[in-house]
């Protein structure tokens, strides 16, 4: 349920069948995409079953039982053969019964599988939406025609800036630079991940565009390295495995 707190109270109302209007529509839309909220809804119904237990006491009148059984007799669920009764008929009933049991078992299994498939389809639809969202973000970040604006204090000349966003668990790094000075053709900027211990790790090469902007998205990085800082050096065009001094820009984690 974490991250879904805005729906928490509405889920209880929905389980009770008393949510309506826009709140219900918004929740139903969310439920299509969120397996964890669907599970919570099912658990809330379990809580409702407990509430029902508080009413226990009164028993239905005896006539209700007979009324039900009479009604069931009027709606038999198997039509029995009435013609001749050959010796093998009981065997065929047994076979029919066994077949019916198998069919019921298969249909129950089917119903379960259909639910699982529906759940998976809803999950997949949710993931598709998340993927599309992520793609849009990356497309915006990396678009060659994107307008990149760095805001600084008024009357300050534009300064070179780099912003690194690093998620250690996923070894994922997004780096955005702006106002970078132009660099000679045979040189390139190299980004370095400075770990807590050990040598700097190459984290991508870049050349700024005509406006001084550059982007590095998810360069190859070793798994699960804790970063102390990120730095930039100027290297030969093919890049280096160790930084060439001086460091032209550096920043530590916030």
């Amino acid at each position, binding site marked *: 349920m974490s991250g879904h707190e805005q729906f928490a*109270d509405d889920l209880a109302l929905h389980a009770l069948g008393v949510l309506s209007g826009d709140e219900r529509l918004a929740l139903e839309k969310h439920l299509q995409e969120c397996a964890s909220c669907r599970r919570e809804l*099912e658990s809330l119904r379990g809580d409702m079953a407990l509430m*029902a237990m508080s009413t226990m006491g009164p028993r239905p009148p005896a006539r209700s039982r007979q009324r039900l059984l009479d009604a069931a007799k009027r709606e038999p669920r198997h039509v029995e053969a009435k013609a001749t009764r050959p010796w093998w008929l009981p065997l065929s009933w047994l076979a029919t019964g066994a077949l019916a049991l198998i069919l019921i078992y298969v249909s129950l299994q089917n119903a379960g599988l259909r639910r699982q498939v529906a759940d998976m389809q809803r999950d997949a639809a949710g993931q598709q939406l998340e993927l599309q969202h992520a793609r849009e973000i990356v497309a915006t970040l990396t678009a060659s025609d994107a307008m990149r604006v760095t805001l600084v204090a008024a009357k300050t000349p534009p300064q070179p800036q780099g912003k690194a966003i690093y998620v250690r668990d996923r070894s994922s790094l997004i780096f955005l630079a702006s106002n970078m000075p132009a660099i000679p053709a045979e040189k390139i900027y190299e980004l370095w991940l400075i770990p807590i211990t050990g040598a700097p790790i190459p984290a991508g090469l870049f050349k700024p565009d005509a406006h001084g902007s550059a982007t590095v998205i998810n360069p190859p990085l070793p798994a699960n390295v804790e970063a102390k800082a990120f730095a930039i050096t100027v290297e030969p065009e093919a890049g280096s495995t160790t930084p060439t001094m001086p460091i032209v820009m550096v920043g530590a984690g916030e």
Partner: protein
Amino acid sequence: MRQGDENALAQLYDRYSPLVYSVALRVLGDTGAAEDLLQEVFMQLWRNPGLFDSSRGSLGSWLAVISRNRAIDMLRKRRPETDVSDVIVAVERDLAGEADRNRIMERVRGLLGGMPSNQRAALEMAYFEGLSHSEISAKTGEPLGTIKTRIRTGLLALRKAFET
């Protein structure tokens, strides 16, 4: 039951009819209407035992929930909004044994009795009368958000008490 066996229907009735009838009577407040609901719920199961998917919870809990929902629909004179086969109740308790049911009943009553009175009132109005949070708020003069939270935390308090 799934073989069309009337004896199985009778056994299910003997086991679960007190639960279905009690919740129907509490909501509807009328023995005749509660009997009709009892008949309707069991005939529905007789006609189509596949409505209940045993892989997704216990029959007793499922019957309790669909009976309460149907009773609220009857009380509010509206058509059933949800297909009962879509009602999945995630709980392992089967509520089949009378001793178990009595133990759970005592405990739930104790928990409800120990709740702050305004929380219990909000939960009972939503559960037994099918009132929305707006209707409860109009009735009690308390803010909508407060009512919503009271209902949810009330249900969660029941769940927590039965978690081991």
